[in-house]
């Protein structure tokens, strides 16, 4: 419960910092260029401040900021950051996403897609048969659709550019 309230507050603060920061930056632009940022930014600062105050007051009161409606589907009820195990899984997922971007950047799409698919599925304890099948099918679909059929030049990666 505390984690959820703290998370609510952190996200509200993120929006507040975003609006305040960018509104202040926009003051450095010419009057015409800052017109719209101010029109959007000032109400943004006001609304985000109200949200921060609401989240902070729930934190002080130790209450849920809002109630989850009864009868809602189970998956949508997953609100509030989960426990330690799930937090670890969150970091792991973010790590996997970052790895995908890094691999594409270094090795390009044609190498990354089968290798990443294989690595991810092995890490999730899928059988070698499944991993290899998905990697090969993924590569074939990618190659046939993008390279052969619609002739898009996919990013080759830093390694293969050199």
């Amino acid at each position, binding site marked *: 419960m505390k984690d959820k309230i703290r*998370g*609510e507050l952190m*996200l509200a603060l993120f*929006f507040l910092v*975003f*609006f305040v920061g*960018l509104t202040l*930056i*926009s003051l450095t*632009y*010419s009057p*015409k*260029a800052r*017109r*719209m*940022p101010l*029109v*959007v*930014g000032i109400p*943004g600062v006001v*609304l*985000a401040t*109200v*949200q921060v105050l*609401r989240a902070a007051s729930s934190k002080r009161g130790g209450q849920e900021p*809002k109630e989850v409606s009864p009868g809602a*589907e*189970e*998956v*949508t009820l*997953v*609100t*509030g950051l989960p426990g330690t195990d*799930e937090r670890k*899984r*969150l970091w792991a*997922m*973010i790590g*996997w*996403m970052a790895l*995908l*971007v890094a691999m*594409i950047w270094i090795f390009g*799409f044609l190498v990354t*897609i089968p290798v990443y*698919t294989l690595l*991810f*599925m092995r890490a*999730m304890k*899928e059988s070698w048969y*499944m991993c290899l099948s*998905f990697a090969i099918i*993924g590569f074939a679909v*990618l190659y046939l*659709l*993008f390279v052969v059929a*619609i002739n*898009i*030049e996919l*990013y080759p990666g830093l390694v293969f550019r050199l």
Partner: protein
Amino acid sequence: MNILSAAWQGFSAVFELQPFLLMMVGVFLGNVIGIVPGLGGMFLLAVLIPFVFGMDPVSGMALLLGAHAVTGTGGSITSILFNTPGESSNAPTCLDGFEMTKKGQAGRAMGAALYASGVGGVIGALALLLVIPIIRTIVLSFGPPEFFMLTVLGISFIGSLEVKSPLKGLICGLFGLFLSLFGEDPSTGVIRFNFGSLYLYEGMRQIPVMLGLFAVAEMIHLGVKGTDLVDKKYAEVKDSVWEGVKDVHKHWWLTLKCSVIAVYIGFLPGLGGVASAFFTYGYAQRISKNPETFGKGNVEGVIAPEAANNAKEGGALIPTIGFGVPGSSGMAILLGAFLILGITPGPKMLHEHLPVVFAMAWTVAIANVIGAAQTLFLAKWMARVVFLRSSLLIPVILVFIALGSYTTSNSMGDLVLTLVFGILGYFMKVYDYSKAPVVLGLVLGKIAEGNFNLSYNLWGLSFLTRPITFFIALLVLWALVSPLIKAYRERQKEGEA
């Protein structure tokens, strides 16, 4: 030329062998490309244009319009099954379509989406046929102030729809609007908020932001939960695509109204398909008997944007044909194709090539019916994909997202942006911040700014007193205040109980 005889000539021209076959090819390609995130209707038009050189106008139009008219139909499939919008305009479909999938109703959602797309497309085409004589008056009544106010209305409509917290919805709308201000200011050329990055010179790109907010966030959520996308208990449920088709019949009035709204938005140059899809989603929630179930798997939330998605194409063709002013970016490419085919759009076209104009309208209508039928036929099998284990789904979808994100502008920066917004989208999901207003703000921001600057330069703040602008401003006020009144009434009811 007699209107009826021109309409008949146009109709029979579409059913000649070559145009009909080309339309079928276009529809098939449109459906396939629509499924791949990032590769939308514009991409397909650009790829197909070289092939229409030397074709007769009706055949060329059949290929291009057939393809363009149905890309939204294919795009609804990934929105429903994986929370990954195939086209930007499919983003609102994710909100309820994906929730239906999680409840084991993927087939029903797809049936509703595809059938609504087909019906919407036909209504759009019919509207095109009917509206041609009165186009000029309507378009000319809208200037920059009205366009600006329409964008504000769209954002406040969607932002205030957050039943539990309109405040969060509005913050998200403003956040999206601010994101749209990154990059070059169109009126002064000043580069804003780029933080020294060359990538941000062009501003925040919509597709990577959307893929991040919706698709990546969902994959993170799935990975964190450590379960499968759809609970295994639903795998036994005999889910019927036809149930979705029946839903569209049941909500025929909603389908019709959303299609008509989309036609109107489609033919206002510059607002585009995303706006019509979000507007109609918001409208459907407002008029629904169960607004609190929107975002939790209400089929009306699927029908409204999907009907709008295809209906708006008929609307967007109206200014393209009538004035030579494209109603959307896809229509801008189509305009180029018209010239290649030897047709100069504008009032002259309505006199000299009237059968071709009707052939276009018929093509859009027929292509929508064929497109919806093609995908409806396959929907039952496609829906089974969601029962795959998450360890198989996640890498495949992540790769799919990465491809979609990269191919929109061939930039590695897009992949990083997708990742960043994926993480933000996850936390927004966890803490109940709606993503729809962010997307709408991002999409409409540039249009809003351009029209606001023009209006301010021409009339100062007195532009707000123009009759249509003032009327729309009242609607904005209503959109902002009505949720507060509703919440107040509900609290009073609870107090009495």
